[in-house]
Structures are given as structure tokens and as C-alpha cells.
């Protein structure tokens, strides 16, 4: 590589100035850590908010237009289910019930729980069982408990264990594993649709959502239009997740707060590293001038400064990612329900921000270095 030597000089100038290099690394690492922590928390919250959609797994959901999140279902009339079943392109449509109830445990403690009532005929949206047999859900008083971070709140029930739910006796027949934990921090019980509406007091309408499987993906538009004509909304899984995401981002203040914190983290990182890098350039300015006098071209120095800034930024980025991973791992170890997750999206965002920090820092340095005249070195 043509400029390898000049880059190596830059590398040595940078890492041999241990105090400045450490300050630069700390600044960028800290900024990346904060940006990643904020966005990881938000990603974790969204992931939890999507959990119902993820765990049920239906490809299309029909709901009242006012629904913003999966947990805030507005009951649907039974005729809607019949109407959807008769629509062109619909392979099958089933009801699902979602509600919450206070569960009285064997110890006498009351614990709130989410109750999901699956369609009796198809059990569409059933979880994978760790223990037990899904057919046992048809047994008298049968419930399947989800083995997630909230499971201990039900005193870690085993198959055969019992509880009371609105003066009805319930019995655990299976223990399930689901893909995503819920957002609300309460345990989840699965049962049949008919048992759920029997155990839990409901309004006149009892269907929370109509879950639809289509014959082909081409039918999406047709079904959406047909459902809209009835005054309801049909959303694909991704669209429903997007609606939930929009709710949390734009209507709860969480998104704004996270965005603010991310911007502040960026500014902190930029301030520390930009300032330190600028001081570093200023301290070496005469030397850069001497290099120009000796015969270094402007682009040699530009490459050198870009390399120094990029190397520092990427090292800081790696350290920041490592640090946030460690912190989240420790937090998860101590708090299994800790809602934070690192995604390629937030890693990409932090990477972009770090490149921006490197770019701005380089720009300041390059401007200064390109301005220095070798004659100034002679003049002293």
C-alpha cells in the first residue's frame, strides 16, 4: 500500500502519546457505551412489546382500529370472525382471547397473570412445550404455564400443580418456552379460548383478535380492503409490530427520551474526543509543518490524520460495544427480566455516530494542519 509508511508514523505518534490516546479512547468508548445502552434498552422494550405478536406467530391480525399495542385489545364481535372466514384468500381465521387475571397461588399469595385463550379447534399460536403434552390443554381446568423470567412469580409451578383463578380451580398440564418475554413483568398462562372466557369476566364481545392465515401472500391487499370495509383493520405481523413500535416511539415519550439521551451521548463523545484530538493536533502542529517542509504532500497528512481519527474511533467503538455487552450480560445475570438487547440496528447506529465523531474530529485537525505553512516553522 502506497501510504503505509505515513500511516505507520501516524499510528506511532498516536499510540505513543499514551495520555492523549487514553483520553480519546475513554471519550469514544464512553459515548459508544451510552449510545448503545440507550438504544439497547429501547430495542429491549420494543422486543418485549412485540412479544405477543412474536410468540403467537400468526401471519395476519384483525383488530379494532384503535388498538395500539397487543396488550390493549378491544373486543371484536363474533360476526367479524364469520365474515373474515368467508373472505376470498383466507385459508382459515380463528379467534384468540387475551386478558389478565389475579391468580391465587398455593401459598395464598395473589399474583396477576396474562391469560391467552387459544382457538379450541386449531390451538393456533400455541407455544412449544418443554414439559407435558399440548393435547392435555383440553383436559379439565388445564393451563400451560410459560417458563420465562416471570415464571418464579407463580412460585415455579410443576405439572400437576394448582392455583385458583376467579374462584375457579386451575391445573398446570404443561410448561412452555416462548421466543420473547413480555413487557409488563407478569407471568403468562395459556388455555383454550372457551376456558379462558369461562374463567375471566368479559364484556359482551370476547374475541381479542382474529388470527388469519392466508392462502397466498397475494391475498393480503384483498383481505385488508375487505376488513376495512367492515370498519376494522387487518395487519400483517410486521405491520402490527410497526404499529406497536410507532406507539412507543411517538406516543409515550420513551422514543423522544431515548433519542435525546443518544444525542447527548453523541455530543459528550464528540466533545471529549474532538477536543482531545484537536489538542493532539495543536501539540504536533509544528511537526506537521516540518513534515510539509521536508516534502510531505497535503494528502499525505490528510491520510495520516484520517487514519489516526478512524483508528481511535474504531478502537473506542469496539471497547464500547464490549463494555455494553458486559454490562448487559451482568445485568441479565442478576435480573433475568432485564429488557435490553443489542441489535445490528443499534450497533450500526452507534457505528455511524462514531464515524461522524471521527469525521468531525479529523476535519478540525485537517483544516488546522493544511493551514500551517512550512515557512512558519522556519520563522519559529
Amino acid at each position, binding site marked *: 500500500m502506497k501510504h503505509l509508511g505515513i500511516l505507520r*508514523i501516524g499510528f506511532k505518534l498516536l499510540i*505513543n*502519546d499514551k495520555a492523549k490516546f487514553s483520553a480519546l479512547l475513554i471519550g469514544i468508548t464512553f459515548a459508544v457505551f451510552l449510545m448503545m445502552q440507550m438504544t439497547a434498552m429501547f430495542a429491549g422494550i420494543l422486543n418485549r412489546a412485540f412479544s405477543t405478536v412474536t410468540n403467537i406467530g400468526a401471519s395476519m391480525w384483525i383488530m379494532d382500529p384503535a388498538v395500539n399495542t397487543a396488550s390493549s385489545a378491544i373486543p371484536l364481535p363474533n360476526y367479524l370472525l364469520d365474515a373474515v372466514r368467508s373472505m376470498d384468500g383466507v385459508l382459515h381465521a380463528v379467534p384468540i382471547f387475551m386478558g389478565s387475571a389475579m391468580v391465587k397461588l398455593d401459598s395464598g399469595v395473589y399474583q396477576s397473570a396474562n391469560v391467552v385463550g387459544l382457538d379450541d379447534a386449531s390451538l393456533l399460536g400455541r407455544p412449544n412445550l418443554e414439559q407435558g403434552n399440548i393435547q392435555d390443554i383440553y383436559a379439565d381446568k388445564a393451563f400451560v404455564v410459560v417458563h420465562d423470567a416471570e415464571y418464579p412469580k407463580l412460585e415455579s409451578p410443576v405439572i400437576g400443580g394448582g392455583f385458583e383463578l376467579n374462584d375457579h380451580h386451575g391445573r398446570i398440564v404443561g410448561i412452555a418456552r416462548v421466543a420473547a418475554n413480555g413487557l409488563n413483568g407478569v407471568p403468562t398462562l395459556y388455555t383454550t379460548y372457551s376456558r379462558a372466557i369461562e374463567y375471566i369476566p368479559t364484556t359482551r364481545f370476547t374475541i381479542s383478535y382474529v388470527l388469519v392465515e392466508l392462502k397466498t401472500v397475494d391475498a393480503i391487499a384483498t383481505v385488508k380492503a375487505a376488513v376495512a370495509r367492515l370498519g376494522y383493520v387487518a395487519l400483517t405481523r410486521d405491520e402490527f409490530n410497526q404499529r406497536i413500535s410507532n406507539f412507543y416511539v411517538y406516543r409515550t415519550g420513551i422514543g423522544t427520551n431515548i433519542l435525546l439521551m443518544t444525542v447527548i451521548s453523541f455530543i459528550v463523545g464528540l466533545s471529549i474526543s474532538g477536543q482531545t484530538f484537536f489538542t493532539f493536533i495543536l501539540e*504536533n502542529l509544528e511537526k506537521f509543518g516540518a513534515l510539509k*517542509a521536508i*516534502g*510531505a504532500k497535503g494528502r499525505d497528512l490528510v491520510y495520516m490524520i484520517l487514519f489516526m481519527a478512524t483508528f481511535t474511533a474504531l478502537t473506542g467503538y469496539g471497547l464500547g460495544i464490549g463494555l455494553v455487552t458486559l454490562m448487559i450480560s451482568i445485568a441479565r445475570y442478576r435480573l433475568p427480566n432485564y429488557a435490553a438487547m443489542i441489535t445490528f440496528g443499534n450497533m450500526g447506529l452507534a457505528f455511524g455516530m462514531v464515524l461522524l465523531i471521527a469525521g468531525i474530529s479529523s476535519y478540525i485537525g485537517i483544516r488546522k494542519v493544511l493551514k500551517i505553512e512550512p*515557512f512558519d516553522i*522556519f520563522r*519559529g
Partner: protein
Amino acid sequence: MTAVKEVGMVAHYGEMLFIVGPSGSGKTTLLSMISGILRPNAGKVLVKGEDIWALTTDRLAEFRLSTIGFVFQDYHLFPRLTTAENVAIPLILKQKNWNESIAEARKYLEIVGLKDRGETLPVKLSGGEQQRVAIARAIIGGPEILIMDEPTASLDGDTGRMIIAFVKEKVLNEKRCILIVTHDARINEYADRILNMEDGHLTNAVKGNE
């Protein structure tokens, strides 16, 4: 304000030429124009018949790298690089291989009497030793013109004389010309020719022909 006015001078290969004069007389400005780092408002600087100020910026940088060797008044060594790395800089700028450049730098450190100091940082060297490192850096690229700006200003009398004697004996040859700007009359004995400058004019030759 014009720092240098109507100056005409010729330097020859194989000679050590001093330019002396009071502060503000334009010595450094003249040297900067000769070495291709300060563009004159008018006039020409001819090196082997070619006007260096007619070159493009990049070609001028290449000219400086290949033809001029600089020894700055404050040396301007990189404090975070070893002496060998400092000396190797002109070769590295010429995109020569790093290890070969360092090996070459060690040879030049040996020439200037600092054979075993290749791994030392400049701050651990005395002023005279730093001056020698700067000289090694200036001559490693094989320049035809060596420019030294107040080379003895930061040195005591004996060390200053020793350095200039060394330069005359080991660095000057028939393919090289050395231009030195100095206030230090104690080293005048080493000059082949001395030009005096006052108020931007070359006034008279203190030694040799103007």
C-alpha cells in the same frame, strides 16, 4: 512590507555558504524562498537552471523531498518517534519500505556518531545529539542542497563548532551545497563564503566573493 528586495546570488556545489545579518534582515525569508517553502512575489529561484516556483504544489513538494535537506533551528524531531524513525521520515515520505528505511536510518545515525541511539527517543538526547539526528534526517534522502537555519543557536560554543566542523567534513561534498543562516560569528571560520544581509538586501560579502 517587503522582506527581501532585489537579491541576486549564486550558490555552488561543494561550498558551504553562510548568510549572516541582524534579526529581521530577511535571512530566513531568503532561505525559505530558495528552499521552495515561501513563494516570492517576483523573481526566480533557479536550481540547475529550472525555476522551482514554476512547479505545481505537488511537484514542489517532491522537489523539496528529493533536492533539499532541512535542519530546523529547533530540530523539530517527533518526540514520540525513536531517533531511527525520525531519521527515516524522508525515505518513508518517498514511500520506501518501512524496514528498509529504518535500516538506512541506522546507517546515517552511525555516520553522525549516534550508532547505538536508534531506539532512543529524542528527548533523552542532548542538544548536540538532537542536532546530529536532525542532520541525519536532512541528508538521508541524498539532497543536493542542505539548508541549516541557525544550527548553533541552541548549542554551547564548543558543541556548535563541533557540529559545523562535522557537517563540513562529513556532509559537504562536490555534489552538495550547504546554506547556513546564522548569527553565530564563532563558526564563521568554517564558511567558504559569507554573505551579509541587511534590510532585505545582500550588502556585501564578508568572506569570499558576493
